[in-house]
């Protein structure tokens, strides 16, 4: 059986999909989580194997975005591999009127189908009682109540599906032929489509699921019969709502209309024009305080573990270049990534809690109100907020924006929002240059600065959008239609899964790149032109003899000379003149270069370079960075001026190859990613330069 799951956004579709197929996947609350097709398999009670496709959430079969077009094309294209022979249409029982529009449309497509009501617990809280038998009788299809989160109703759904083949409704709820006989006849004949509603949708929606008639032909046919697409669509929607009103009158009982729901009462506070922002910023402050204060102990443990492993590897492995590679290249590089696991877990744990509880949709709502003042439309809010996790899915989420210019602006500004890859860079620099003092007696200054960096990224994105709006001159027609899911107690399992997935993606995704770069970097840092190295070593030894250095002093000076005359040292010194005005030495320069692969590579790179320069390897990466000085002045390298300059550079620069790639793919040209890369990197250079020169 080829089964399709169709429904409005935020109706528990993903939860039901997970429950049926066993596929673990994130369940979010705001639009844009289900963006493309997902497929899973399960078995019916009669042992029949079902291929289940989870289609993107949509409000009707008249598409207003690329995602919604996918739904229509899948349901109409009989030659497509995903064309279903049975459909489960999901309806949120607490929001029946709106959901039934799509339900009645899908029924009219003539598929064998089952209607699954979700959110019945919410409906009961709203004192709504659904008469399943009456609904089944009037719609002519089986209906069940399910709960993807608890598993309730799954057996009933599977049984209904096993019997669904014979339950397709024969007559149409809305029959376009009643008014447009000649048009439908001509259309049906041209498309070879016996179902009048399918023919109607193909004729009016102007998507191209069938090659039988060209889009031009369909358009001409509508014109010949004096049919205006939008008007016909509105007329159909009004007619359907009349039918739905009648249906609900006889099948849904509302037992108490007076009492305002708890969700409404909470919303009055959380979406309040002042209190909403106060609460949001208080929550942000809590998250960033927690990132610093709760992660200290586990981070120290991970650091200690890697220091011990490094020492152990030097003791156990036979001395030689391979042992050096492990102790100075691979282990410090990996430690640079793994040490941030606690912070990543805490950040995403909080984000998952906010999503699971339903609060994230309220954040989008209050932000939408704020951003309209800056000339941004509501649909840009979701990508900008989800960009705080990663810019790549955020840029893909812009597909829901109808107008191209508005979508382009959102794509261009999204990389300014602070993604999770910036977190390791920010935290290590903040920990180095910002004192861990208390503010107002209960807030940590480091946490406040981290929060300020997140706010700074968001302000940058909004400001850039204002500028782009003026330059590109977009006509803003888009608006945000936002689902406000009821508040729910977050499920520990879902929060835990999100934390696990994000940590895994950080370790596996970034870890492999960092491991590869660490190996290459170690080789480049350990070897250099022999003649140059010998010359540098002789100079150091002569100086040591003249000044009577101790053996430890000599070893350190030789290590530093070797590093400086290594291949990486030579490359670094070539770029040093360009970055020196920003307060960076060649080691930071190399880290900046490798960061263009991905920002978090910064820490791994620094860790490897410092490990090669310090063969004894007895200090943590933070301690080594903290002790480093400018050779010319003897002043600390990572002081406040360099730290702020680096923070600003990482906030502004476009240092992510994957983002460049996704922008190229979404804009289908190299023009925009190259402009974005050049503008962001130039801004990063100029702003960091000004900051360093002013502070130092």
């Amino acid at each position, binding site marked *: 059986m080829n089964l399709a799951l169709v429904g409005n956004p935020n109706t528990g579709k993903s939860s039901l999909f997970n429950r049926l197929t*066993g596929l673990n996947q994130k369940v979010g609350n705001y639009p844009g989580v289900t963006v493309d097709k997902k497929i899973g398999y399960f*078995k019916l009670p009669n042992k029949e194997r079902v291929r289940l496709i989870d289609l993107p959430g949509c409000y009707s079969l008249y598409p207003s975005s690329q995602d919604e077009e996918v739904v229509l094309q899948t349901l109409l294209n009989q030659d497509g591999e995903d064309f279903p022979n049975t459909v489960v249409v999901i309806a949120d029982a607490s929001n029946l009127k709106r959901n039934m529009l799509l339900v009645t449309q899908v029924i009219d497509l003539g598929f064998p189908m089952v209607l699954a009501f979700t959110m019945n617990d919410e409906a009961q809280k709203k004192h709504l009682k659904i008469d399943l038998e009456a609904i089944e009788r009037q719609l002519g299809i089986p209906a069940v109540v399910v709960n993807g989160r608890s598993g309730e109703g799954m057996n009933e759904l599977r049984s209904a599906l096993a019997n669904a083949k014979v339950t397709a409704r024969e007559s149409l709820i809305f029959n376009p032929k009643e008014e447009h006989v000649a048009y439908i006849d001509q259309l049906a004949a041209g498309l070879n489509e016996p179902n009048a509603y399918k023919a109607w949708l193909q004729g009016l929606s102007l998507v191209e699921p069938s090659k039988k008639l060209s889009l031009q032909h369909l358009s001409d046919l509508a014109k010949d019969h004096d049919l205006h697409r939008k008007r016909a669509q509105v007329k159909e929607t009004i007619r359907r709502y009349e039918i739905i009103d009648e249906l609900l009158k006889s099948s849904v009982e509302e037992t108490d209309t007076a009492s305002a729901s708890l969700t409404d009462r909470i919303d009055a506070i959380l979406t309040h024009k002042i209190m909403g922002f106060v609460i949001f910023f208080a929550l942000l402050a809590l998250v960033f305080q927690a990132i610093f204060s709760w992660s200290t102990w586990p981070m120290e443990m991970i650091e200690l573990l890697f220091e011990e492993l490094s020492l152990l590897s030097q003791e156990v492995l036979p001395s030689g*270049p391979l042992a050096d590679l492990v102790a100075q290249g691979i282990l410090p590089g990996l430690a640079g990534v793994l040490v941030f696991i606690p912070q990543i877990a805490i950040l995403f744990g909080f984000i998952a809690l906010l999503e699971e509880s339903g609060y994230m949709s309220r954040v989008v709502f209050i932000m939408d109100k704020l951003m309209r003042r800056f000339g941004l439309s509501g649909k840009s809010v979701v990508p900008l907020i989800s960009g705080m996790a990663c810019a*790549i899915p955020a840029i893909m989420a812009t597909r829901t924006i109808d107008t191209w210019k508005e979508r382009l602006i959102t794509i261009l500004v999204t990389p300014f929002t602070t993604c999770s890859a910036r977190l390791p860079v920010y935290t290590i620099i903040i920990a180095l240059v910002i004192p861990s003092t208390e503010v107002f007696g209960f807030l940590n200054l480091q946490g406040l600065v981290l929060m300020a960096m997140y706010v700074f990224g968001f302000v940058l994105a909004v400001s850039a959008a204002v500028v782009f709006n003026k330059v590109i001159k977009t006509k803003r027609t888009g608006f945000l239609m936002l689902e406000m899911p009821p508040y729910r107690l977050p499920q520990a399992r879902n929060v835990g899964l999100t934390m696990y*997935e994000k940590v895994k993606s950080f370790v596996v995704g970034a870890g492999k790149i960092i491991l*590869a770069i660490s190996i290459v970097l170690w080789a480049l840092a350990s070897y250099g032109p022999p003649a140059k190295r010998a010359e540098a070593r002789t100079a150091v030894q002569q100086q040591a003899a003249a000044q009577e250095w101790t053996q430890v002093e000599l070893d350190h000076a030789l290590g530093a000379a070797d590093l400086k005359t290594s291949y990486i040292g030579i490359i670094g010194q070539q770029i040093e003149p360009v970055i020196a005005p920003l307060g960076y030495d060649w080691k930071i320069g190399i880290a900046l270069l490798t960061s263009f692969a991905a920002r978090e590579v910064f820490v791994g790179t620094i860790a490897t370079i410092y490990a090669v320069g310090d063969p004894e390897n007895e200090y943590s990466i933070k301690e080594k960075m903290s002790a480093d000085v400018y050779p010319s002045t003897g002043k600390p390298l990572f002081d406040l001026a360099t730290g702020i300059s680096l923070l600003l550079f990482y906030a502004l620069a476009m240092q992510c190859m*994957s983002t460049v*790639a996704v922008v190229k793919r979404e804009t289908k040209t190299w023009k925009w990613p190259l402009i974005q890369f050049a503008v962001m990197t130039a801004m990063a250079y100029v702003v960091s330069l000004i900051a360093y020169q002013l502070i130092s």
Partner: protein
Amino acid sequence: MIIQYIIIALLVATALGYLAVRLRKAFTSKAGCASDCGCAGKEFREASISNK
């Protein structure tokens, strides 16, 4: 010692090869990035899982 240098050369070549493949995948994969993680790829790739 020579064997150690050969192993290191192989490791460096593998690392460079991996980085090159990763870069190519970033520009050609459907997910838009080469990540094997769950962030974007999973939501955009066709996930096919059999429920045993």
